[in-house]
């Protein structure tokens, strides 16, 4: 039974349009013009308990708006949404106790106080008994590799990575069953990103929590998500496994060559698109359906010392799909 279900989820909102300059300002003052933004256009999907789903889309695609509807922060314009059997916007107490939303750019910790003060408030707000609070605190600290001292110094004095970890502690203290994560690794360095990913993987395995994650870092998606939802201009373009997406929508393979002797770009042209040539090293882009035949020709015609075939980077595939605007 799905833990998250969206049927024909639609969200429109209005924004005031104003032309620049004095005339624009006066016109705006006298007669305000509104424009309707169709942020989400009838998307449907379901998420099972324990599933980790990546929510991908370019800026303005409607990812964050959809998350806001799923968490109950905003009301949908049309369609039906159910999370844990509740209608999110009704903000039922039992529903709120089982979900969390982590936004990379927003914080719930009180800025001028140590994180521990905010954590104590959360423990009281979520009715976590004192003994259980201490136990969970220890577990989360261990999973996030956070020092006790980092929780007793003002939040404003923490580094971005430490702060994000403390935010995760505050967001996970009540052990939510559904996690909505909006760019949780935004701005973090590589080590901190890895720590957050490891934490999420560990939390998912331990608590069988469903995770819906948006991120512009494909490393987050490839490390955590078996399934992805692709949203573009408010519409759901793809719902399926990441591997299938790569297989289906990447018609090219990258072939890296190490040759016995130096070759020119001209010599390699007949095998495929030449990305670069440097001495005995070269990289070619070859259409998938021509791959076997081309490799055969390469081995026949050139003295190949080493050969590697890889998929193009996932970022490239996704970007190609979004610029095309379709997965067909």
């Amino acid at each position, binding site marked *: 039974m799905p833990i998250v279900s969206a049927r024909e989820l639609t969200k429109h909102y209005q924004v005031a349009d104003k032309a620049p300059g004095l005339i624009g300002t006066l016109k705006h003052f006298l007669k305000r013009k509104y424009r309707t933004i169709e942020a989400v256009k009838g998307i449907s999907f379901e998420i099972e308990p324990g599933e980790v789903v990546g929510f991908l889309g370019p800026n303005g695609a409607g990812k964050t708006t959809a998350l806001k509807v799923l968490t109950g922060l905003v009301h949908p314009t049309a369609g039906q949404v159910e999370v844990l059997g509740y209608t999110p*916007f009704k903000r039922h107490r039992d529903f709120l106790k089982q979900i969390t939303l982590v936004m990379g750019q927003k914080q719930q910790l009180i800025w001028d106080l140590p994180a521990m003060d905010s954590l104590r408030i959360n423990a009281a*707000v979520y009715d976590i008994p004192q003994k259980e609070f201490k136990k969970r605190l220890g577990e989360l600290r261990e999973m996030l590799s956070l020092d006790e001292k980092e929780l007793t110094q003002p939040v404003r004095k923490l580094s971005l990575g430490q702060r994000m970890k403390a935010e995760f502690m505050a967001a996970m203290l009540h052990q939510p069953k559904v996690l909505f994560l909006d760019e949780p690794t935004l701005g973090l360095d590589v080590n901190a990103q890895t720590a957050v990913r490891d934490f999420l993987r560990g939390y998912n395995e331990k608590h069988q929590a469903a995770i819906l994650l948006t991120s512009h870092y494909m490393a987050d998606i490839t490390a955590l998500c078996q399934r992805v939802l692709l949203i573009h201009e408010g519409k759901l373009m793809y719902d399926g496994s990441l591997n299938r997406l790569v297989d289906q929508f990447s018609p090219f393979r990258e072939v890296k060559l190490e040759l016995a002797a130096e070759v020119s770009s001209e010599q390699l042209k007949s095998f495929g698109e030449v990305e670069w040539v440097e001495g005995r090293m070269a990289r070619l882009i070859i259409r998938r359906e021509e791959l076997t035949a081309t490799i055969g020709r390469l081995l026949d015609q050139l003295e190949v010392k080493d050969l590697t075939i890889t998929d193009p980077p996932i970022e490239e595939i996704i970007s190609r799909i979004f610029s095309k605007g379709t997965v067909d």
Partner: protein
Amino acid sequence: MSGTARKARALFSAYYAYMLEYRAEILLWAISNILPLIMMGIWMQVSSKPGFDGPSAVEFARYFLAVFIIRQFTVVWVIWEFEVQVVEGKLSPFLLQPMDPVWRFLAGHIAERVTRLPFSIGFIILFFVLYPKALYHQDQFWSIGIADAAIVILMVTMTFLVRFTMQYTFAMLAFWVERASAIERFWWIPYLFLSGLVAPLDVFPQGVKTFAYCTPFPYLLYYPAAVLIHGYENVDISFTQAVGVLGAWGVGFFLLNRWLWRLGLKHYSAMGA
């Protein structure tokens, strides 16, 4: 400890720690609240003019000191805080918790009051040192009976809660407009004149007083201040009237607040988040 008591304790201790971080700012806020003391100087001058048939200089001094004290305990700023949280999307994390965000705002106000208390006491002592007549005049100390003290404490608590409810109700407009705090600035005008902040209602014409008594304003300042200096039996407003009228306004604003809250959440777009 019950869940509610634990929440109250956790919120109060965190926000008290927060307010202590800003103790210097709170001291400045307490000092900046000196309008009653300015009015005191003006009215004491007026009272010394020949032909003035109103309260004496000492009565004015006591009245405006009482106003100053009451205002120290009833200052409310929730509309500015709420407005920023809505406009910048900072309200969102708190909306996702199983507790109404109003309790955080309320805890902040109560914690600020406790932080401000030593400063307020310091000001009162300083005032009596500078103007001892206010404390001891014509062989008599300014004394307050138990019943009067109880009424003042009750009215000050009620004043704070009603002012908070009123301002929090105006704050709900932040769901629709970016500058809801402008409403509070407008509301300040009738408050300024009808609450007794610029002059005790005793000096107003009867018609104005009758009108004012139908509004919540005189009960927010004038009534508790008058009880503090004259005693409840010598004030032209009865305790029942004060509690009844202020309570009715409080309940009215509370119901309006809950209605606007529900409508506002429907309209909320979680901007900036």
